[in-house]
């Protein structure tokens, strides 16, 4: 089978630079203010509280947290394939809310607020050219 350059399928990050992988562990990449300690994801380069860019630096954020709220989305834009679970996870120790697709559980199963979650990188969808769009997601921690 001949493969031309144009037919190669790519892997694309849904939000470029949203995460980095360190020692096989994915981490969100945000910013943190060294003055007040506030963390931001996506990165904000001017602290919303101190209102300065001084001491605001890129930061590797936590990859674990607790489920805050979630829903099963049944109707979506054409790029997506519902049903899928979407929620907010509060990551620790930064204590900020991250919007995320939830994975790794049966949609019929009910997750309780406060469920411990961990971050993974998985396929979010495929685009119209067949490229794989990947993103950070969170799944319940299996004990």
């Amino acid at each position, binding site marked *: 089978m001949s493969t031309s350059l144009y037919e190669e399928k790519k892997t694309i990050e849904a939000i470029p630079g949203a995460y980095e992988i360190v020692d096989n562990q994915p981490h969100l990449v945000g910013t943190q203010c060294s003055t007040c300690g506030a963390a931001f994801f996506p990165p904000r380069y001017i602290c919303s509280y101190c209102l300065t860019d001084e001491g605001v630096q890129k930061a590797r954020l936590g990859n674990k947290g607790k489920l805050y709220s979630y829903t099963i989305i049944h109707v*979506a*834009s054409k790029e997506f394939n519902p049903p899928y679970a979407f929620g907010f996870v509060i990551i620790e120790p930064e204590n900020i809310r991250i919007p995320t697709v939830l994975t790794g559980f049966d949609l019929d199963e009910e997750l309780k607020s406060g469920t411990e979650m961990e971050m993974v990188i998985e396929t979010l969808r495929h685009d119209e050219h067949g490229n794989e769009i990947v993103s950070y997601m969170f799944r319940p921690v299996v004990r």
Partner: protein
Amino acid sequence: MREVAVIGVGMTNFGKFLETPIKELGRRATWDAIKDAGISPKDIQIAYVGNACLGIITGQAMVLGQIILKEVGVRGIPITNVENACASGSSAFREAWMAVASGMYDIALAVGAEKLYAGDTKLSTKALSGGSEVEYEANLGLTMPGHWALRAKRFMEKYGTTKEQLAKVSVKNHKNGCLNPRSQYKKPCTVEEVLNSPMIADPLTLLSCNPLGDGAAAAVLVSKDVAAKYTTTPIWVAASALTTGSYDLDREISRNQLEEVAGKQAFEMAGIGPQDLDLAEVHDCFTIAEFMRVEGLGLVPEGEYGKWLDAGLSEIGGKLAVNPSGGLLAKGHPVGATGVAQVAEVVWHLRGEAGERQVQGATVGLAHCSGGGVASDTPACCVHILKK
């Protein structure tokens, strides 16, 4: 700051008008408002036109206001297009109010016009997702009903609100919509029908979400001196407030703080309290939204709206009529048109022209629109209080 009066309003029927050009919807509403005011198009000195979704639905991402207003002979004057998601129309109204209140202009026009129905729910959903950060939440698959479902889950957990209580918002507003000839839906529904309609984003079903539709509305705003020349029954803009979110990533999402602030600002400016209102047109894009907003704006004590619904206190003839027009849930929500349509509804009630749905003896009404969902907060909240 000068006093500003609304002397003319117009509104198309709301519904699915796939074959009707936007300029025709806009023209009909604007011409009705001009005729209602008794002015000539040449009297209009400045205009603001709200729209949110056309860039995605038809590709008309620019100069909509100029396109509509040339159809009614309004040319040569300053025309500004206004976008603030679901609050686009109310933000256009606020700009027109500021233009007159500031003393810069005596006669201003506010228009809201929208086509959201596309015969393709996925395309409409994409257009609405533009109310969130497209390169972030929307890109990950969070839809607008999804935003509200997440708030609903927190709200229900915090206040013990039941799915049945949420559904009662839709039942009430559909009942009101039956009395409004301009309403997209004029069909009653039951709690069971709301709960058993197809799931959109758990716990929000199809009948818990506003329908997709098209339409336009317009209002003529003038200074006190001008009002006296045209009418003996001006409706006064007693307050206007516009706020944005905090985007704090640790805030509680079962409360909308920007609405608490806007409500306080508006009541302070009007010099009245929530108890003085006879009706409120509140942005019920989803059943949960009416809960969060009547409580956030201070119209109903925190956590009590479920009891209000159980007791019928927000029905027409109740303690405070909430969404007598049918609200977004039944009357419809052509996004950019809604804010101006709410003003038209309040004006009709205060003039005693609201027909079968008339709130008897109404003298003060509130119109509220909030738009979008960004960083799990709301980017725009616009409140107006109108009085006789």
